[in-house]
């Protein structure tokens, strides 16, 4: 059953490459939160109850509800409708996503480690790579925050891959990262949107020499 959610997570990555509307980004982030919930629910049966409940609450509440709601508010505040054309056409982004997925599957096939659960490692690695690619091709700081959240989802899966050894500390760290990142960055985007009247990063290059 975990495989089902992992494959669906990979499909959401493809849809991220395909979509251009900002609303769809936020919606896809919420769906990714649900997929992570499914993955956790069906796999982590062996750790103690409190940690288990904590991780479940974190994925459903924070990743699927709070963060997308907050991002929606920021989106409405700045009147973002559609992403301006990304610097790499969508056609090639989809090809890049597919190549990244194939590469991560090949790498995890060749990893012979007893400590990593390679079934999570595949999409975790692909998610991190794709998040970095996403930040590079989009020129709009809202999309940068979305890319950052994709990287965070990948790190969450990677911490599942590492095992159930120290779940509490790791999850606390990720939760802190996500909350601090999104809340602070979101508030900041509102400030920047108000001051600069746009959120393209071309406006943010006065500090160069």
């Amino acid at each position, binding site marked *: 059953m975990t495989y089902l959610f992992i494959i669906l997570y990979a499909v959401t990555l493809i849809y991220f490459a395909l979509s251009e509307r900002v609303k769809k980004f936020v919606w896809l982030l919420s769906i990714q939160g649900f997929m992570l919930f499914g993955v956790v629910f069906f796999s982590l049966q062996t750790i103690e109850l409190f940690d288990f409940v904590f991780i479940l609450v974190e994925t459903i509440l924070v990743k699927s509800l709070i963060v997308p709601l907050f991002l929606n508010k920021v989106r409405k505040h700045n009147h973002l409708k559609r992403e301006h054309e990304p610097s790499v056409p969508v056609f090639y982004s989809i090809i890049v996503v597919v190549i990244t997925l194939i590469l991560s599957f090949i790498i995890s096939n060749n990893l012979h*480690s*007893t*400590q*990593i659960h390679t079934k999570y490692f595949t999409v975790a690695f692909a998610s*991190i790579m794709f998040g970095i690619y996403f*930040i590079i091709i989009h020129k709009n*700081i809202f999309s*940068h*925050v979305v890319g*950052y959240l994709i*990287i*965070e989802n990948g*790190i969450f899966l*990677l*911490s599942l891959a*590492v*095992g159930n*050894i*120290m779940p509490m*500390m*790791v999850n*606390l*760290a*990720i939760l*802190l*990262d996500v909350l*601090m*990142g999104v809340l*602070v*960055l979101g508030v*900041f985007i509102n*400030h*920047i949107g108000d*001051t*600069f009247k746009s959120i393209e990063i071309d406006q*943010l*290059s*006065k*500090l160069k*020499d």
Partner: protein
Amino acid sequence: MIFIFIIIAFILSFFVFVSKNKIVTTISLSIFSISLLILTAYSYQHINQTDSLYYKFDAIGILMTGILSILTIASFYHSFLFLKRKNNSEKQKAMYFASLIMFITAMLSAYFTENMALLWVSIEATSLFVSILIFHSRDKNAMEATWKYLFISSVGLAIAFIGILFLSIVASENGVSDLNYSSLLEIAQNMNPIWVKISFILILTGFSVKMSIFPLYAVAIDAKTMAASPVNALMSTALVNVGFIGIFRIFTIIAKTSAFVWAQHILMIVGVVSILITAIQLTRVKRLKRLLAFSSMEHMGLVVIGLAVGGIGFYAAILHLIFHSLIKAGLFYQLGYIRHHFKSIWIKETGKYFKIDPLGALMMILGILSILAIPPSGLFISEFLIFKALFINANYFVAIFVLFLLSVIIYTIAKRTFHLLYAEISDDLLVENIKPNPYETISQFVLFGLVIYLGIDSPLFFSDLINAAITVLN
């Protein structure tokens, strides 16, 4: 003890933030500085003991905290003068001081902590608080600098977190289930080199945003161009030391495995490329603060080269770090006061500083000579030791190339500084009616004098501490 300190800091910061009263602020800040000094002395008494479950008073932490306590007092003093000059409201002052207290506490936690995950959390906290401080002036440039710093810092720390996850993989392969530094050191010989290499590269990349070395140096430079001078003094020194501690921990772990030589090569490349980028970019710099920010990058490149070369290079690297912190802080305090005299931030619109404020200009010259590692500055001694180690190790090409780059950097910085000090400019670029304030230069006397003293005739406990800090590397 550290937990008590952190709780006291929380309470003090909360008081300062809530009551926007000047007397409360002054009392809280004094209590904070005195507690920090007490903590430093306590840690020296109880060297190498664990404390509060996740912290340990090891030698390198004590050295860094000592510098932090000296700079805290100086920064508070200069913050008062700075905020008085800017005529900020009480509310803004309260926010500034509250975040400054939390920032220093977070850095302290990063110095002393023994657990890699808690180290990561402390560094994340420093990111947050320093962003509030960079954003203090709330204009467009500050907004841009804060956004870039916050975002790339978060991404960099996410990358460092992946590195820590890989470290935990290799730790659990050998049966260690917590990320405590001492337990990792014990099992370091048995670690699979591949995982440690990947972890090292990721942590180096992630913490390079704090230490302002290649590859993620750009946002730190931008942030230092925009922040207020007392904050800049702490950012360029204590925060850079935090980045160094992060990299140092993983470096000592990898020192016990078979991948040590490879790690030293990587660090050598990083150091040389940092200095190369500095030399190239400095020719285009036209703002004073940016000049000093790039100079930080160059010195960190030298520290990394010192780590990479080994032998006496280890001792020289830590010595270089300490001296650089003291001198750079003094320079930034002076620079804050210089900025007050001129209307614009561009170097070509400043000049005649020697005529305006001779004492301050004298301090500026002394500071710039010290940062350029000209004797009797302590930096001369540490750079001399680094190059000696390079020549002993037969890295001739690296040494000659870096010496050439350093001479380019010396030329550029000196040229810009002498423009500031001696150039003839029209009087309408100066702010009128500013009397030079002699109290601004007290701190620099102390700091520069300390560096010269420590360089020439360092006391025994100082060199013992440095030697204790690098024993893990042998």
